[in-house]
């Protein structure tokens, strides 16, 4: 017999290294030949979309297309240290570094344009479509390419390097009081499960995810993170276990270490909640880890709602569920 149940869970998550450890990201912006703009950061692209989001943030400041940006992050000899791609910190930390660096690059760009255009001051200079022009007299303009060529002739380089440090204080060792992380990201996920009371097998038939993001940099990519986080959380709740025995990993290959396939997950209803964080680049907060956190508890609460058994030890395997149903479940 199949019984259905619903469950929710909420979570909060402080992004960044925390506890006063210096959380610093550095970014370097350069005007390259042909007027291209390069952003050099040590931030790793692990698949979360850092290269794209950082290019979006940088391109926004200069009002240029993302295609006009070269994002360099693969080589330590060409990039500054931007910290780990971890703690859901890259969009927030290195995003801020890129934004600040691009803003100071913009000032330098206007200074160069002032020289080139023979102006007394850079007041009123604006930039759009890779051009720098005088707001009050648009004919007075130059292009990124022209500036690059001038600099090349003068054997000079136009670049700006800036850093961003997140706010975090060390907590009191006795009381734990302090401001360990900033900012915090919040969410609430809900699931409906179907439990086969004769085999203990659980199928997730509905998933709803409301995710606070501060401001969405790239909604499609955020949805990808929510889907992926949900899948990893579902695996954590129902399937995954290394099967440790005396320090030996029994499930040390993919035929035994079970992660969800495309047939194990429902269609996921996603709600991106924007409430911009003033210290974040354009209001953005970190979401890479938060998207996974409420999944397992929501599933466990839904299992209880379905068959009246509390699974206190992960994973919630069919064995544990069936054994619990037989001994004290409400079935």
């Amino acid at each position: 017999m199949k019984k259905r149940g619903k469950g929710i869970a909420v979570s909060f998550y402080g992004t960044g290294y925390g506890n006063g450890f210096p959380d610093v990201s550095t970014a370097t912006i350069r005007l390259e030949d042909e007027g291209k703009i390069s952003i050099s950061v040590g931030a790793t692209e692990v698949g979360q979309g850092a290269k794209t989001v950082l290019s979006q943030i940088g391109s926004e400041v200069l009002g240029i297309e993302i295609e006009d940006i070269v994002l360099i992050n693969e080589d330590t000899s060409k990039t500054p240290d931007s910290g780990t791609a971890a703690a859901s910190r890259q969009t927030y930390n290195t995003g801020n570094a890129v934004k600040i660096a691009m803003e100071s690059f913009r000032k330098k760009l206007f200074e160069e344009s002032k020289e080139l255009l023979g102006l007394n001051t850079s007041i009123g200079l604006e930039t759009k479509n890779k051009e720098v022009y005088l707001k009050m007299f648009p004919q007075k303009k130059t292009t990124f390419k022209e500036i690059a060529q001038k600099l090349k002739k003068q054997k000079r380089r136009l670049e700006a390097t800036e850093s961003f440090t997140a706010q975090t204080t060390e907590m009191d060792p006795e009381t734990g009081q302090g401001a360990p992380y900033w900012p915090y990201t919040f969410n609430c996920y809900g699931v409906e499960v179907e439990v086969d009371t004769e085999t203990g097998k659980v199928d997730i038939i509905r998933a709803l995810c409301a995710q606070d993001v501060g401001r969405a940099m790239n909604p499609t990519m955020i949805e990808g993170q929510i889907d992926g986080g949900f899948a990893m959380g579902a695996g954590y709740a129902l399937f995954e276990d290394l099967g440790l025995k005396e320090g030996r990993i029994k499930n040390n290959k993919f035929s035994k270490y079970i992660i969800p396939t495309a047939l194990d997950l429902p269609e996921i209803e996603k709600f991106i909640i924007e409430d911009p964080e003033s210290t974040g680049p354009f209001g953005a907060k970190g979401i890479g880890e938060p998207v996974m956190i409420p999944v397992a508890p929501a599933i466990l609460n839904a299992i209880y709602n379905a068959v009246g058994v509390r699974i206190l030890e992960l994973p919630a395997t069919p064995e544990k569920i069936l054994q619990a149903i037989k001994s004290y479940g409400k079935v």
Partner: protein
Amino acid sequence: MINIKLNVNGKDYDLEIEEDLRLIDLLRDRLGFTGTKEGCGEGECGACTVILEGKTVNSCLLLAIQAHGKEITTIEGIGKEDDLHPIQESFLENGAVQCGYCIPGMVLSAKALLDKNKNPTRKDIREAISGNLCRCTGYEKIVDSIEKASKILQQRGSESHEQL
């Protein structure tokens, strides 16, 4: 050593190989098709999926000799730099790609599906990629992308009929 002949992405190859060479090692190490990835070595993850005579197979579970005289398509045989296959285009447009390691196998599983079933349901699509594990995307946007690609291909199919 033994000689085998096979066609990969439309080109014929005649090679002398070690007898127990796996197909995946022939494709990657000998022919440089490194788009075919190894993720588990036991036919569980699908990252090494290629199309052999119209059917998806795990190239890590085949000896190269089993491909003798046969046609193989790897990801490098799908679409070109300036003319991506609709499936690839749709993967990009619909956010199906994250770390990218499972993507070659996913694209090939999608192609094998759409070559046989022009109008698959989302369940058919999930079934078709059920042998391709992904840890980043949770599969949903991959399913969206294949569904949208099937619509584009059907449209193009009907357009070309009209021109005939």
